[in-house]
């Protein structure tokens, strides 16, 4: 495997959850987006595929966990939801739930997901294998991966 300068954080597996974070697991059950916006003390929110995560903007400081649901793997709206959260500066946990395929986990990690609790638990080894498969990325996303064009132009790196 070529060195992309993108080390993969070690995942831990507990129950049916695969987690790429080492902070304490938020233990409050996630509530719906509407409920979250109404309850000023809630800190875990559940995003359905059609929800607009940008509504969390004004209250982002109190969010510790965002669960993003995939009702079926064909529904890719959650990818945008996660990336938008990271673009807004959200640093807390983003958990993928529902119909999550191991072969899409790499893309999900790149969009900012850092925990996975799908309906059918993922095998940690399969996940690590699929995360290690591609040595590079062609474009930037919500992760720290350095895109190929930057590797090709080291003279621009500090520009």
């Amino acid at each position, binding site marked *: 495997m070529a060195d992309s300068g993108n080390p993969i954080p070690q995942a831990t597996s507990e129950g049916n959850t695969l987690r790429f974070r080492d902070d304490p697991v938020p233990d409050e059950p996630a509530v719906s987006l509407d409920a979250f916006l109404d309850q000023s003390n809630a800190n875990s929110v559940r995003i359905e595929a059609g929800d607009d995560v940008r509504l969390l903007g004004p209250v982002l400081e109190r969010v510790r966990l965002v669960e993003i649901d995939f009702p079926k*793997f064909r529904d*890719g*709206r959650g*990818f*945008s939801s996660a990336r938008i959260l990271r673009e807004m500066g959200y640093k807390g946990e983003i958990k993928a739930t529902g119909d999550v395929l191991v072969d899409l986990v790499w893309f999900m990690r790149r969009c900012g997901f850092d925990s996975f609790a799908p309906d059918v638990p993922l095998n940690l080894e399969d996940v690590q294998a699929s995360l290690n498969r591609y040595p*590079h990325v062609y474009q930037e996303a919500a992760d720290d991966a350095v895109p190929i064009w930057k590797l*090709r132009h080291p003279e621009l790196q500090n520009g």
Partner: protein
Amino acid sequence: MYKYDQYDHAMVRARVEDFRDQVRRRLAGQMTDDQFKPLRLKNGLYLQLHAYMLRVAIPYGTLNSTQMRKLAHIARTYDRGYGHFTTRQNLQYHWIKLEDAPNILGELAEVEMHAIQTSGESIRNISADHYAGAAADEIMDPRPWAETIRQMTTFMPEFSYLPRKFKIAVIAAEADRAALRWHDFALRIVKNDAGEVGFQVFAGGGMGRTPFIAYEIRPFLPTGQILSYLQAVLRVWNRHARRDNIHKQRMKILVHELGEEEFRRQVEEEFQHFLSLGEDFPQAEYDRIAAYFTPPPFEAGLPEEIDRTDPDFAVWVDQQIAAHKAPGYAIVNISLKPIQGIGGDISADQMDVVADLAERYSFDELRVAHTQNLVLPHVRKADLYAVWQSLRDAGLADANLDLVTDIIACPGLDYCTLANARSIPVAQKIADRFADPERQRDLGELKIKISGCINACGHHHAGHIGILGVDRKGTENYQLLLGGSGDETTSQAKITGPGFDEDGIVDAVERAVERYREVREPGERFLDTYRRVGMEGFKEAIYG
């Protein structure tokens, strides 16, 4: 043309291994076909009526002789000795075994080819003007941008499960040879009043069961902002498209439901946001890619005249040659539409012949046209006779470019699980009816396009004459459409009236064509006459 560097090689090789592992898990029974389906589709592998079909990407329709020979080798080794060029400039093999697919991808990777994102709900292979880099009328070669966008859109994480497929085309001329406005997202490279190069951007086109012609969403986009703009379009669509009905999830439907103005407003808002993230590729990366597309070393002082003493050759020259930007050179169109053949099909031996010709006479370059023909882009006029002789010996010298027998037809019920009717036999019967070369030339430019179901892979919406096969009470029935176009005057064909059976549709086409001959004015093509006289003038002839 573009050369892979270590990074491109590493990514394509990783894809081969990724897919090899997925096939292994499928064959070992660790995955159901339902689970495997979305994975194989991202690699261009479809399950058809008789076997797997593998669609190989030919980015912006450009190939060299090494790649063409590899395609021939794969056809011989893993298929039945032929391949099929498609309306999106790709190549399909129709008789593939699942267990061979990873090895085929491995062979393709050796020659810098792949099948990444050639199917499934993804950003598909990018198509371009097949005369790119050679056309006398282009303002620049559009392929460096097509290649840059290919890299931008390869494995885009946020858009790994789009609502539906997403097709992009790029051209750089006034004349549209790529059916630009039938794409989801289309770019015409233009210069503004200040002389700066940018993109005229079209969005929301597509054929299928609900056809829409793309609208101009932005008259001028600075080239360096294309990734931001493209991501904005994709994000608005990805977030807001319907997800409840696969037939209403293409971007054209969202554009239609929101309205062009509102879609544009949302895209602009998201575009400003993406610009602020600073993810656009720098000019230096575009320049690196563009350097691979430096024009070949055209010789100066070559003769312009062509020796036309052989009358068969002269006929071919008049039909198959297009104007080249360099003096003394010509663009050669190779017809893959022999009268009794299957449009777009080519044998492995013919592929080798074409590869040899490209190597010897065309700076090692070949193009695939969306009309399912091939192109030798840079041939010295002095070499045309030798090229023609070789093509003739290989059965590739038909002189029917853009004529009534240069038909686009989808694979239809002979191959496809979606089809309601056969397309290929209808195309063959029409070609047979109009086989007389003099009759074809008298009729002039006339584009017939045939689809075997409403998914419109045969582009019937864009045919001067379109034919749509449907299933009516268990029998194949064909609707006739008139007035479509995929050129710079894009228009959507309209249904003439009640449908016909297989022989009836051939007669109906002939009646429409004869009506054109009766009423045409000097210099008018079929499409011009239709646009002047309208449907009524033709209906009467077709239905009596």
